[in-house]
């Protein structure tokens, strides 16, 4: 797979490298570029002995989400990732990286597998979002995502997530409840696609560029918010120098796995609980609000009667 991804220095057929300052909308287009490396490209380059594990043991296998065992950075890990295609045929087979409930149930099953064998988890996030469809609703798309979130939150092994392309809403987060969240410079991560947001709030999907701007979906902004732990630079957009990008992502993942190992020694029986507690603390603090202290003395009005 890596051979087909040899770095090309010739001009890309699509005008994908914007000139001037890169807007949020430019990043959306970069993140969606079909030539950008996808999960299996990362695994082909970074993983040794990758054994793909299929199926949710209940309904089917979802090719839009791949998972399996592999050696990454000198240790065996469980890898999970959304998988888009590079061309139309592949994309149809992979459902454009839009995962169905059986995909999330496969992820959930493999996460528990990682917990059972004490394997660190590495995930690659790259999806437009969970699949909207009749079958997905019948098989409980919402519940499948929620259960994956629950299992990730409660997992006693270290988790590193890398947003490498499109971080599309709950379908992305479903494999993103991690101890370390890394993000490529031109990746985006958002509560909804800019088109969906524009359609809902502007009643006009063509306002997507404006929505992209105000939604604050770029790696730099998410790092500023403290949601992303490390931004991996893309001196050249990933689709132009895929191998360079893959190696940079690999180095960052390995560094974070090493740091997590040092901080949470796998042999220490307290490690699973410490990981859970610290992961909870990480997500627990996310949010912005004001909280005023009651001004009046005594009981609040609605409680005084009790």
């Amino acid at each position, binding site marked *: 797979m890596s051979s087909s991804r040899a770095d090309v220095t010739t001009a890309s057929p699509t005008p994908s490298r914007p000139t001037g300052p890169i807007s949020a909308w430019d990043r959306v287009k970069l993140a969606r570029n079909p030539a950008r490396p996808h999960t299996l490209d990362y695994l082909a380059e970074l993983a040794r002995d990758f054994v793909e594990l299929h199926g949710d043991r209940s309904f089917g296998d979802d090719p839009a989400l791949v998972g399996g065992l592999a050696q990454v950075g000198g240790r065996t890990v469980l890898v999970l990732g959304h998988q888009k295609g590079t061309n139309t045929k592949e994309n149809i087979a992979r459902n454009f990286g839009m995962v169905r409930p059986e995909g999330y149930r496969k992820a959930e099953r493999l996460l528990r597998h990682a917990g059972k064998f004490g394997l660190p988890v590495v995930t690659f996030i790259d999806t437009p979002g969970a699949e909207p469809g009749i079958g997905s609703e019948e098989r409980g*798309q*919402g519940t499948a995502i929620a259960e994956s979130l629950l299992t990730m939150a409660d997992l006693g092994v270290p988790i590193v997530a890398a947003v490498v392309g499109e971080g599309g809403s709950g379908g992305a987060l479903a494999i993103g409840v991690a101890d370390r969240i890394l993000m490529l410079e031109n990746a985006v991560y958002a*509560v909804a696609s800019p088109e969906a947001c524009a359609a809902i709030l502007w009643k006009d999907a063509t306002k997507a560029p404006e929505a992209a701007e105000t939604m604050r979906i770029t790696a730099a902004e998410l790092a500023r918010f403290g949601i992303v732990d490390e931004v991996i630079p893309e001196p050249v957009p990933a689709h132009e120098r895929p191998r360079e990008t893959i190696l940079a992502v690999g180095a960052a993942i390995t560094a974070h796995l090493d740091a997590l190992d040092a901080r949470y020694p796998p042999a220490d029986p307290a490690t699973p609980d410490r990981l859970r507690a610290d992961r909870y603390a990480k997500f627990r603090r996310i949010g912005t609000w*004001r909280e005023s202290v009651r001004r009046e003395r005594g009981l609040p009005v609605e409680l005084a009667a009790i």
Partner: protein
Amino acid sequence: MRSFFHRQGKFQPVSADDERADQQIPDDLWVKCPDCKELLYSKELRRNARVCPRCDHHFRLRARERVFLLADDGSFIEWDTELRPEDPLDFVDGGGPYTDKLRRTRTKSGETEALVTGRATVGGHPVGLAVCDFDFLGASMGSVFGEKLARAAERCTKGGMPLLTVSASGGARMHEGIFSLMQMAKTVAALARLGRAGVPHLALLTDPCYGGVTASYATVADVVLAEPKALIGFAGPRVIEQITKQKLPEGFQTAEFLLEHGMVDLIVTRPALRATLCSLLGHYAGARAHRDLAPSDRDGADDRGAPSSDPDLGHLVAAAAGVAAGYGANGSVAEPLPVPTVAVGWAADGPGR
């Protein structure tokens, strides 16, 4: 139907006081049932817990109406009333800045956020309650929603008190972007700890329940209940129709559809809700008593978890401690109260709290 509860521009700004719920009830005398088209006397509809007496159509409830219907009389103590949303993104959409929208919504709905949390007793069983108010920006989940729910779950974890969530939401709140998305992880993580502590989470899904709420805390409950004919799903029906170009099957995404596909435990009509909850809570309380946990594990002092920086709320904690200790405070379960008559009617003066 929504216009029945809240007609734009019709209401004066309401302050958060006892009369709040009362003031929101419009003075229309007659309401048309959207299902059977029967004209209903609005007072009678209210007395019938907003269930159409002719066809059993369940009208949507505001959060405080729901609390009034669920909680034993006078038992509800609200939590975290002083949390207010911020605008971390400086979000501006076609309709203007988010902060303006918040101000308008606050005035129209009389609520300060889309989730009302607190503790109450249901048939004598102490529970933590978290109830969505769909009239506040479609009960979308933003930072305050997530924070209130996480705090509620933490109090329930500490106090060994079951959590009851009542959801009706359009999903995550766009205006708070990634912060809203992360509330999905945050609320579920709080529930993971609740589960680890062996404390039950009961969820009631009501019309409509979509997106980030269906895909997070609302569906990872130990028991998932749904109201009849409530629309529940991940993606909205219009989105699915547009993308798949397929005609949606009859009854798609209704509670009955979810039951048929194994996604909910039980459909419960509004009049039967309290009795069902009492049975469930009784089972968990009984099981807990049987496990005979060490009394030192919970002294019943910390389940309100009011911010320690707030002396007035701290005061409240002490005041409420006696009531709260019911659930396993001394290693046994408080004498279960007789299941009260199922509350189907409003008090004559409406759900004023």
